[in-house]
């Protein structure tokens, strides 16, 4: 059932006093999480921008109960909370991890992989702004090729690590990619995740005006361009079935994709990036979609139900 904006609750989800920068994709994303999941949620947040965005204790600018936790342990702390709620007969409580790309793909990866392998019944959201923004824009393993950061002054020389595919390889019940540029899609995926038992992974692409050096009024626009260039494909993996989401379907065909230059030219982090960066990113996009084609072919909803047995 498609989500209609007019049906979504109109509640102030981020409180005055939160410390987000103008145009912050994290407060946007957090708002959608609350729209999707409602009030029966506890949040686990490791070190990152969202530790700061909450504002100053004893108040909080985020409308969630939150266990803040050390950088590398978000998934484990969430697993513990979920186990406690189950023991207390509170199976209904959704335990949600809200972690950045560092807390997910780098320092927190071991805990994430552990929780996924155990199929702990939590929703893990990676809010991916493609660098360590909270410490001042240092590269992460999820920073894309060619991007300037304060530890890659002449552009990153490696490509973005594909965590969603790695999570699919964990054979968890649900993996999805999403974008702050497509709130309905994100909300729909979160609601689906909430209806599934076991480990759910949702990777939210979250362009950061400060770190990527673009106009803070353009956050959703830049997020949409990432999808339209094919650099950030929206897809879902559900119990062994893989499908490209509707907003990304047309970008299977390279000729339908927006030119990468259009995406790069809005971002100061790609200032001075020459044609070789564009070429390298184009080849990355092609490889990425080859993966997707492979997954679609072998795991499409129509062909695979019998071939793969997924944890449920």
């Amino acid at each position, binding site marked *: 059932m498609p989500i209609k904006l007019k049906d979504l609750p109109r509640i102030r989800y981020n409180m005055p006093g939160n410390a987000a920068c103008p145009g912050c994709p994290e407060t946007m994303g957090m708002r959608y999480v609350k729209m999707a999941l409602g*009030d*029966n*949620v*506890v949040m*686990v947040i490791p070190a990152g921008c969202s*530790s*700061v965005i*909450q*504002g*100053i*204790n*004893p108040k*909080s600018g*985020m409308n*969630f*109960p*939150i*266990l*803040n*936790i*050390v950088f*590398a*342990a978000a*998934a*484990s*702390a*969430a*697993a*513990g*909370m*979920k*186990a*406690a*709620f*189950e*023991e*207390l007969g*509170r199976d209904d*409580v959704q335990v949600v991890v809200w972690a950045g790309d560092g807390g997910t793909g780098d320092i927190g990866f*071991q*805990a994430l*992989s*552990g929780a996924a*392998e*155990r199929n*702990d019944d939590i929703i893990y959201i990676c809010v991916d702004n493609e660098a360590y923004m909270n410490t001042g824009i240092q590269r992460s393993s999820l920073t894309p090729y060619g991007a300037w950061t304060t530890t890659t002054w002449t552009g990153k020389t490696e490509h973005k690590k594909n965590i969603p595919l790695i999570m699919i390889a964990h054979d968890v019940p649900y993996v999805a990619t999403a974008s702050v540029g497509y709130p309905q899609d994100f909300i729909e995926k979160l609601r689906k995740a909430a209806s599934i038992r076991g480990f759910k992974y949702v990777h939210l692409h979250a362009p950061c005006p400060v770190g990527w050096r673009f106009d803070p009024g353009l956050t959703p626009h830049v997020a949409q361009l990432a999808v339209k260039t094919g650099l950030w494909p929206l897809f879902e993996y559900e119990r062994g079935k893989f499908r490209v989401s509707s907003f990304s379907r047309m970008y299977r065909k390279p000729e339908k994709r927006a030119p990468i230059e259009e995406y790069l030219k809005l971002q100061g982090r790609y200032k001075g990036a020459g044609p070789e960066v564009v070429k390298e990113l184009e080849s990355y996009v092609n490889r990425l979609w080859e993966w997707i084609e492979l997954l679609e072919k072998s795991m499409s909803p129509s062909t695979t139900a019998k071939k793969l047995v997924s944890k449920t």
Partner: protein
Amino acid sequence: MPVKTLTGNKAVAYAARLARVKVVSAYPITPQTTIVETLASMIEHGEMDAKMIRVESEHSALAAALGAASAGVRAFTATSSHGLLYMHEVVWWTAGARVPLVMAIVTRAIGPPWNIHVDHQDIWDQRDSGWLISIAESNQEVFDLTVQAFRISEDERVYLPMMVGLDGFILSHTVAPVDMPEQHEIDEWLPERKQPYVITPETQYVMGNLATDEDYYMMRYSIQAAMEAAKDVIKEVDKSFGENFGRSYGGLVERYRVEDAKYHVIVAGSWAGDAKEAVNILRDEGYPVGLLRVRFFRPWPTEDIVDVVGSSKGVITFDRSVSFGARGHLFMETISSLGPLAGKLSVRGVIAGLGGVDVPAEEFAMVIREFIDEVEREGQVYDPAYWHLPSQYRDMYPSRVEEVVR
């Protein structure tokens, strides 16, 4: 009350079950492993009503236990040596969160080189973290302390997590009779879990976001205040446990033959048994010596030390650990508790038994005898770091490391 012969590790596991722990999360490490195995077996076979989270590391083990405890249930984990060091930042986070929790530490040396045998370097390394830190002498005390730890940690005057130390292999893998109360007796003695807050959709509680520097400072102040308050709580719990189950240990310290003693031995952990035997030997020889066994390293028993040792002629501490570049831990703590009194008595800080090197009762007696004889002969002795070397090295190296350098 059934008496069973149990290893220290089994005693820990049974105590956690009797305390009605609801979430166990742990990662195996020698010599803690049989705690995890026993708990996993009890949970899988329906003998314990709890969830087991088989985490991928110790860092996650304590984080998951903290998550569970902050949602409102009794949570438990256990580790040792490198596992404890690996989870160190979560150790701090748990205390800062003021979440009551119990963790068993099977004490073991830290590498390199690899060494799985007992010393106290791992557990004392946690001394500044805000956890209550206790250490047992016997398997019975391991059991008793583990049960008591929940009551102490969950006391509203404390609300701090607690470690129960037991010496690797010496206690963890050695069987001894352990008197275990019945479930209903523990249920009557151990109150329902209390904690300062729970994080649920209803409470909307947020733990750990930024605080002002001033508020942060005051939260640290409150941990210190809770540590002070814990001293009374530990004594009350020890007394109450004794009244109900017949075993009291003396609170933060155990005093052994101290009544008319002029010299005092300070020691912690399982080798206190050997040290007590040494005291017996020396008493038979006419030496007026008693022993103070440190049961709680945090809060440190300053008042007990001053009370027993303040008017002593000489104090000898035995440390199974060292703060490199300084002294043994018990020595430093003892001297700092004594304050101006320290200058009036003789002291020797002995560093021995690192990496599991055995120190039998006769050797304890020899070292203590030498100290007393020296004080009687020469008047005041100040000897802060005396390395009681392994016997095969004793003739090759001096016991005072400064002499190697000079």
